[in-house]
Structures are given as structure tokens and as C-alpha cells.
């Protein structure tokens, strides 16, 4: 048995836009992505808005339509092929794979008490048999997420952002999932609270043996929490590597540009950043060849013509760039 929990192979998600015979167009939000998420890992997914990271997360939860390729889930108890999953299997998969949303203000119903919010998945999925059992389970999870009994009787409006996010986490965990997609889960929080929620996620992962897909645009947060990072650009995977390796020696020009755009805390470090020109192109009008060539400072003719493929070196570090080797030699990171 391999230790892979989720494996996506050549996964694409496309949406049809426009109507009529002549205006039909396919918008490829995720394009031919292959990733393996190991059991018990904290897998980071980074990229700008519009890079398809949320859509990929949704596709792995079977919440976005997979147009080609496939994804395979295997946790040792069950194995599902997400492309051809039956209705009953999907019901079971929903218990095993859960989502934590970005905005804790929008994700919680203002008219339900915290207890009801956390209990709802149990009741809907028919996991618990009696009210007593539900209550016990809710208390157990609330305790894990550092919410006390007093909190359970209140409504979400009485809570701060950090507390709300802990409620969202409790709701996602209550069905005892194996796989959690955390979509920008700390982006809406203040730094002082953000660290607290990140520590909680890590602690829960340890205790419950969970696997996280952590979607974020904040590279320093990803660097601190994830074991493995994948970088996306315009629906494609451009680089993937173990976190340390990626941050020590990024290979793709896009990854390098992302790193250097992080505002440095050192006021004496101003203006040293290598700036990326322009913006991410529209996914309906994608560039030919390498998708990044329109903004890449190192683009040459071959980049405009041929699309690079992900190439690995056996260490788990893969990059899709025609020139990464010569660039690494010419400009050491």
C-alpha cells in the first residue's frame, strides 16, 4: 500500500462560457494538474487570484466538475475514484473530506446557535443516532477547538474573527474527516489571531492524523505550516517541492518573483524586490507556449512556442520551465 491519500492525474476543470454554436468557449480553470498528497501531510497550494487553486481544491472535494483526467482517494479503509463515484460512495466521501472557508463572517449562519452549527453535519449525514450522542460529539470537538460550553449556546455575532474561525474548524471536523481543504482559512484574520489559528490547525492535525490541503496566497504562512508546496499559475502547476527545498532554492521564475514580492520587515531592505510586471492574463485568452511568458523576464522564443512540462530530479522537486537549469546557474537564488 502506498501512503498517498489523494492523487490527481492530469486533472482538468473547464467551464463552458458563452452560448450558441459559434461563441462556445471553454474556460480552463485547472489544466492538466498532477499532484500527490501524502497521508498525514500539510500540503500548501499557492498562487495569485485566478490561478485556479480554489478550483483545484473544489475538484478534489468533488465540488467542481472534473472535465478530464481523474483523482483517486484512498485512506486505507476505502478507495474512491472521484471521476466515477456513485451516489452512495459520494455520501460517504463527504464525511471523509471537508472544507474550511475563508471568511468566518460569511460561513456561519447568523440564525443558528454555535451548537446547532457544529451539530448540523452530524444530523444531515446521519452520523449520530440520538440527540445525546450528537451533544457529546459536539462537546468533544468544541473542546478540541478550544470553545467552551458557554460558547455553544450563543449565536455567531457574539464572537470575534478568531473565535468564529475556530467554530468553522469545529464544524469541519465534527464528521471525523480524513482530508481537509482549508481555503485561505487565515487570510481574513489579524496577525495576532492568525498565529493562534495556525497553531490550532497544526495541533489538530497531529492529534487526529489529518491531511490538509492548505490554499493560501500568503507565502510566509505557507512556509511555516506546510510540508510540501505546489505553486500554480493560470491553471497549471509550475513548481512543486518540499517546503524547505522550495524556499531555499526556487527554480521557476514565477516562484522567485512571488518570493521577492513579499514585503520585507526590514525598513533598510526597500526597493530590493525583483518586481513582476503586469497581471495574470485572463483564462479565456491564454498565452501560447509557457503561460508565464508574457510576464517572465527570461522568456525566449521557445517559451512562446512550446509548453514546458513538469520535470523532476528525483528529490520531489519538480518545475515546468524551459530554462530553469541555465537560469539557476546564471543567477543563483
Amino acid at each position, binding site marked *: 500500500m502506498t501512503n498517498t491519500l489523494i492523487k490527481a492525474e492530469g486533472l482538468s476543470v473547464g467551464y463552458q462560457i458563452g452560448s450558441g454554436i459559434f461563441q462556445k468557449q471553454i474556460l480552463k480553470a485547472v489544466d492538466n494538474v498532477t499532484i500527490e498528497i501524502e497521508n498525514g501531510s500539510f500540503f500548501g497550494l499557492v498562487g495569485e487570484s485566478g490561478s485556479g487553486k480554489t478550483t483545484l481544491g473544489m475538484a478534489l472535494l468533488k465540488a467542481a466538475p472534473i472535465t478530464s483526467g481523474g483523482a483517486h482517494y484512498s485512506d486505507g479503509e476505502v478507495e474512491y475514484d472521484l471521476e466515477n463515484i456513485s451516489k452512495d460512495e459520494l455520501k460517504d466521501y463527504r464525511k471523509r473530506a471537508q472544507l474550511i472557508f475563508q471568511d468566518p463572517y460569511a460561513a456561519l449562519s447568523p440564525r443558528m446557535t454555535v451548537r446547532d452549527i457544529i451539530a448540523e453535519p452530524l444530523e444531515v449525514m446521519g452520523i449520530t443516532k440520538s440527540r445525546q450522542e450528537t451533544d457529546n460529539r459536539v462537546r468533544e470537538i468544541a473542546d478540541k477547538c478550544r470553545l467552551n460550553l458557554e460558547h455553544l449556546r450563543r449565536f455567531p455575532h457574539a464572537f470575534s474573527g478568531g*473565535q468564529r474561525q475556530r467554530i468553522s474548524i469545529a464544524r469541519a471536523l465534527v464528521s471525523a474527516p480524513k482530508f481537509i481543504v482549508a481555503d485561505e482559512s487565515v487570510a481574513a484574520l489579524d496577525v495576532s489571531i492568525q*498565529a493562534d489559528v495556525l497553531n490550532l490547525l497544526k495541533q489538530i492535525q497531529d492529534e487526529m492524523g489529518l491531511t490538509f490541503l492548505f490554499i493560501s496566497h500568503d507565502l510566509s504562512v505557507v512556509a511555516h505550516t506546510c510540508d510540501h508546496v505546489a505553486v500554480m499559475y493560470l491553471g497549471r502547476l509550475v513548481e512543486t517541492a518540499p517546503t524547505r527545498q522550495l524556499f531555499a532554492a526556487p527554480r521557476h521564475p514565477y516562484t522567485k518573483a512571488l518570493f521577492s514580492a513579499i*514585503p520585507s520587515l526590514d525598513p533598510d531592505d526597500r526597493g530590493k524586490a525583483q518586481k513582476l510586471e503586469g497581471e495574470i492574463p485572463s483564462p479565456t485568452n491564454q498565452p501560447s507556449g509557457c503561460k508565464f511568458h508574457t510576464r517572465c523576464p527570461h522568456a525566449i522564443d521557445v517559451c512562446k512556442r512550446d509548453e514546458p512540462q513538469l520535470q523532476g530530479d528525483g528529490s520531489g522537486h519538480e518545475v515546468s520551465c524551459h530554462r530553469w537549469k541555465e537560469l539557476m546557474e546564471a543567477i543563483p537564488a
Partner: protein
Amino acid sequence: MSGLIEVQNLTLQFRTDEGLITAVDDVSFSVDKGEVMGLVGESGSGKSVTAKSLMHLNAQNAVYTPESKITLHTDDGPVDVLSLKTPRELNVVRGGAISMIFQEPMASFAPAITIGKQMVEQLLLHSDMSKAQCKEVSVEMLDRVGISDAGKRFNQYAFELSGGMRQRAMIAMALSTKPRLLIADEPTTALDVTIQAQVIDLMKDLVTEFGMGIIFITHDLGVVAQTADKVNVMYLGRMIEEGPVREVIKNPKHPYTQGLLAALPKLEDLDASLTPVPGDIPSPLERPSGCVFNTRCSQVVGDQCMSQLPRDVKVDPTHHVACHIYSEAAE
């Protein structure tokens, strides 16, 4: 002295059903021409409310104490902002001498009116230019902030522009009236890092070019380190630390500022654990007595933290901190 705006003893309360809520408590600061001031603090610390009071923009239920004083220096002499009443008087500060950029550019533009029409409208209000001149200035401004094909963008709607472009258009609009002070309320929070870097660069260029003052409100200390000349840290309506950016970030004095910096994930050391500031910011209805930070402070020195408001202590001539740790040392 090239003072631009001075805020003295600003105290602002909101009248609500649950009683008077103190949002800003005895805050004083000043901004000079060509100076960028970073205003830092978490949600609920009162930074936006403070900025809005500079334009007298707070809601009807806001009460300013008689000691509060905001003085704006214009070419026609000093203006006492809080005494302005009629819309005509207020126009001097709102969009005239002071412009504001908001966090969410999509929400700041009217969705059903073209960008150009909105830019021209405000120029007509604040200047004596003709419509044609206004258009010319607007297009020029769009071009200046790095929007390609400005003539075409002028006739587009906000939804047709990408996030970064919208924020640039917002900046162009705010600057076209040639304000003396620009208030930027979390202008880069909704943007990607790569676009954020571009917008920060643009704002730095504009300060040099127009010589205006900027108040940069943000919770991102990295952004502050890259842009500001001086930093003011707010917590629960009080100014707890202020000083030159290098001083405050490299040598923070207040336990809260230290906590904020420690909570930030650092790329240089991936092994360092993240240290959150424990607890949450208290509701303004339950302001702690004594030092406002005492409920979350890990360095409480004694009873005075619970009962006495800490005085403003100068650790050096430009670096001030309001904390009992330092008031003892000073005595």
C-alpha cells in the same frame, strides 16, 4: 515647519443603544508634507475611525469631546476640521484637501457609472475646470498611475478592470484633485503580493512627485516597513507606540508591538514557532480599566497596569511608548 495636519487629544465616542462607546481615546499625532505615516493595529483598534474623523466622515451618532482638535494647514491658513458644519465647508476637507482610498476598490466605484464619469464628476465639484479639461486631467492621471490605454479605460466600468487596475484607478481618482493629504485605508490588502508590490511602488513615486502627506492604514507590518517614514500603533482606541519606522520595527518597546512582530511568520527562520498574542481584543463596551492592553499582556508589572492609564514615555526624542514598564524606569 511644514506641518500638514495636527490631531490633538482626539476622543471620539459613538452614541448607541447600549450606551456611549469609546472608539478613539485621547489620540494625538501629526503628519508633515511629504511624510508617510503608517497607522497599525488589529480590527477594532480604531484606526479607520481615527482616519475618518480627519474628514469629519463618521456617522451621525459620533460625539467628539470638546478637547478634540484637528487642524489642517491649507494655503488659506489653518482649518479647524471638527468645527466645519455645512456641506460647502466640509468640501474643503472631503476630496478637496484630503482624499481617501478604501480597501475594496470594487465597492468604492459605482458599478453602473463609467470610471471616467465618476472621475470627472468629482473634479467638477472640487475645481473650476470645464468638463473637457476635467476629462483631460483624468485620462492623464490614469496614464500616470500606469494604466495602459487610459483613453479606453476611461469609458469602462469598474467590473471590466482587474483588481490591481481598479486600485490604480482609485488612486488616480483620489489624486486628481491634488489633495494635500491622502488617507489610504488598507489599500493593498485585497491584492495579490505581486500586484501589492506594484501598487506600493506607485504610491512611493507619487509621494515624491506630489509632495503630499500620506496616512497608510494597514495591519501588515511588512507593508509598513516598506512604505512608511514613521509608525503609530493603535490598540483599542489608544495610541500605544509611535516612532520612526526603523526604531519601532527593529526595537519595539510596547509588549503589544513586540507581540505583533512575534506573531508574524518569518521566512528567515522556518523552525521558529508562531507566537500568537493570547486572547482577543476586548469589545469596546468592556474596555479594561488601567492600561487597555492588560487583558492580553504577558509582561504586566503590577497593580498600576490594572488601575492606572500609562503615561506617554519618551524612550528617545522621537520614539514614544505608553506602558508602565517604561514609566517606572523613567522615574
